């Protein structure tokens, strides 16, 4: 069973949160206020409405609970989720700035069309989180939906900020993993490809939309010229005049067509950003694997050192070893102390390796479950998107047939 603000969103009814409440981002409003540096700014806030599911089904239809949030708060929520659930493919937010625009579409964040599309995107984000098996039960998420005041403080109290900083550092670091899980390596590669190909598609689509707009709009000139021409003709006048009206209608029809296509672009964009989230999970796996490998490597080297000390053979180079060779051997007491220290370190090292190994295994398990879930969701959603694209094309063709049949009738009366 599928619910959701956008018909194609695969949202499982039966997850904890959505069982309890309906969620929507109902409105958007402009506000002005003073920002952090005490300067006037204009920003948009979005109204989040929640309502217990039972109430609606009873038919009483009570007033929903609601609160206003701005985009930056959504960003804060998402950053918190990213850090707290590193093994989850966290749903993306709608784009911060309008990209892949074609010329008529505004790139201005305050543009009402952009705001409207963002509203829809934010609702989609909330629904996705609310239907996620792990994320939906998060307390911070719940209070984001229900507690207007003091939510920000609550988030910061979790101390996620520190984790966020180190996560960012780690994700951007370069390191080589010796034995990554093959599936994750493939997924990362897939994420890269997906991002690349969707970007390309969005670019091409935007350019094509631009051109299509031109084709339709130029036909408006027919309308104008036919009208002027009909004024100087006797028998041809009526036919020309009415044909002209249809040409005007044709030219005007492209606005709706392209507005619908923009929804399709938004669907693609969501998965463009999802690719990023997917990549982040794969990166995290690499990180945990790397840390495990580092710990294991360290343990091996310590064990080797112990062996050398025990047998007196020096296989590993150490400055101490060299100096002792040059300046004489150490005393048996000194050696004894060293061996004891190494034993402790090896013990600790083995603990660490065990820990890290568990961490790695658990991460792989959880992450892979979510990746599989994501794959299924992606396949379903994108297929729906392609179908809706086809439906759009069909609608466009039908309009074209109608207009030109009408025009043909008018022309034949010329």
């Amino acid at each position, binding site marked *: *069973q*599928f619910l959701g603000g956008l018909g194609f969103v695969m949202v499982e009814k039966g997850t904890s949160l959505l069982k309890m409440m309906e969620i929507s981002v109902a409105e958007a409003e402009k506000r002005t206020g003073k920002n952090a540096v005490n300067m006037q700014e204009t920003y948009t806030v979005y109204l989040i409405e929640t309502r217990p599911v039972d109430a609606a089904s009873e038919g009483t239809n009570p007033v929903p609970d609601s609160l206003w949030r701005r985009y930056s708060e959504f960003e804060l929520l998402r950053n918190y989720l990213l850090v707290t659930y590193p093994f989850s493919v966290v749903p993306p937010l709608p784009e911060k700035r309008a990209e892949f625009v074609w010329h008529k579409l505004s790139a201005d964040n305050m543009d009402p069309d952009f705001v409207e599309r963002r509203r829809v995107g934010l609702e989609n984000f909330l629904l996705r989180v609310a239907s996620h098996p792990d994320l939906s039960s998060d307390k911070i998420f719940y209070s984001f939906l229900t507690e207007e005041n003091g939510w920000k403080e609550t988030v910061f109290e979790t101390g996620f900020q520190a984790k966020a900083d180190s996560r960012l550092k780690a994700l951007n670091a370069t390191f080589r993993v010796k034995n990554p899980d093959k599936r994750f390596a493939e997924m990362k590669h*897939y994420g890269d*490809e*997906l991002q690349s*190909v*969707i970007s*390309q*598609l969005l670019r*091409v*689509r935007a*350019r*094509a939309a*631009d*051109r*299509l707009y*031109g*084709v339709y709009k*130029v*036909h408006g*000139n*027919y309308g104008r*010229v036919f009208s*002027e*021409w009909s004024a*100087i003709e006797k*028998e*041809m006048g009526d*036919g020309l005049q009415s*044909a002209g009206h249809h040409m005007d209608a044709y030219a005007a029809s492209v606005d709706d067509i392209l507005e619908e296509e923009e929804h399709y672009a938004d669907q693609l964009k969501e998965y463009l950003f999802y690719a990023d989230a997917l990549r982040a999970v794969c990166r995290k796996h690499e990180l945990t694997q790397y840390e495990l490998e580092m710990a294991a490597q360290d343990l091996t080297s310590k064990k080797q050192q112990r062996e050398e000390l025990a047998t007196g053979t020096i296989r590993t180079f150490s400055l101490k070893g060299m100096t002792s060779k040059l300046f004489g051997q150490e005393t048996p007491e000194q050696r004894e102390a060293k061996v004891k220290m190494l034993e402790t370190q090896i013990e600790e090292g083995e603990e660490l390796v065990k820990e890290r190994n568990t961490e790695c295994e658990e991460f792989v398990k959880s992450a892979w479950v979510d990746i599989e879930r994501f794959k299924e969701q*992606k*396949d379903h959603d*994108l*297929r729906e998107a*392609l*179908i809706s*694209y*086809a*439906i759009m*094309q*069909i609608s466009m*063709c*039908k309009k*074209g*047939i109608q207009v*030109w*049949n009408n*025009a*043909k009738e008018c*022309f*034949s009366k*010329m």
Partner: protein
Amino acid sequence: MSGFVVDSTVSSGNSSVAIPTDISGQILDLDEDDDLEVFSKDTTVTDGSSFNASMQTSPASMINQYKFEEDAEDTKDIFVTVDNPESHVTAIETYITYRVVTKTTRSEFDSSEFEVRRRYQDFLWLKGRLEEAHPTLIVHPLPEKFVVKGMVERFNEDFIETRRRALHRFLNKIAEHPIFSSSEDFKIFLTAAPGELTSYKKQGPGFLSRMGETVKAVAAAVRGVRNRPQEFTEMQEYVEAFSQKISSLDKVTQRIVREQKEYLEELKECGPTYALWSQSEEELAEPLKDVAGCVDRCCKETEEQVKNLNDNLIPVLHEYALCTDTLKAVLRRRDNIQADFEAKTEALATKKADRDTMRDDLDKAEDRLEWANNALKSDWTRWQKDMRTDLRSAFVDTAERNVNYYEKCLAVWESFLHSQRTDAEGNGNVDFS
């Protein structure tokens, strides 16, 4: 005395001429006279002077030359085609000739089928001859000598094909014209062997005679016409307005073609992008490949549509844009004839000497004017009717092709949708309501 050809030959076997109601306001009143039904197909021009048009009987009977039959197609007795362009290389130049095939049952033709090769120059010559012989009749325009914008060489395939079609239309318009189709020049053009044509071309008024006529024409133009009848002023105004409209339509259509081509360029990249994406996917690979296929097929249809506009609508609009130049020239020539008559009227009133000769000249000028006016009025009606038919059918045709284009694209996407639905049902997935 300059050459009037007075010919009272009864035409053989042709039905009586009906004067259609749409020109009834524009022609002189006719007497019910059997002679008025007479006309001849032999319009022999003995000299090409523009002031010596061929005449059959009286000016009024000129109107009857026009057979405004509704079923023109059924009585068509001459069929002309222009095809098969070929390149010819000589030491001096390279040029293209076109094959002109004529099939006819007309008695004045020696045979029923002719095949000749003609080059653009020959068409130009024919047009010139017809204009000279009939200064106030409307000759269909020829394709331009050179296209300045866009085209690079004369020998570009598209250019030759466009020109060939235009030449074909030109000859057919001549063949359909009640006066032109019986022109001797036309006959020679269709039938003469190359050598014959060249020597025939060399006949006609000498250089000095032509110069004399040109000087007269310029003088008349400078003098200007004083009392132009209202209907010709209206004609001129109409031509002015029409010229603007048709030229706008030509430009608009060319702009549409340009935009379509640019749209096509972008669309051509969509299909391959979907195909590329399908290579990274598993479940989605099929639908993505299908979408790629759909987009590619729509590209092909768009290409077809652009070609249609180029091949069908644009040439017609372009020709009628060129027509306006012809119309303006025709109106100018008529004005000159009137100006000449007015000048001679004045001269008779003021001068004392040579009154007899002058009166003679004046009579001829008056006849010439009356004849020119009537010829123009009738041909104007014919032209308007033709224009209406041609433009109507061109626009109807365009609309039809556009419907066709959208229908084909519709089918493409509907079959995709169908395949997706059958897949879904097959896999037991959720419905798409």
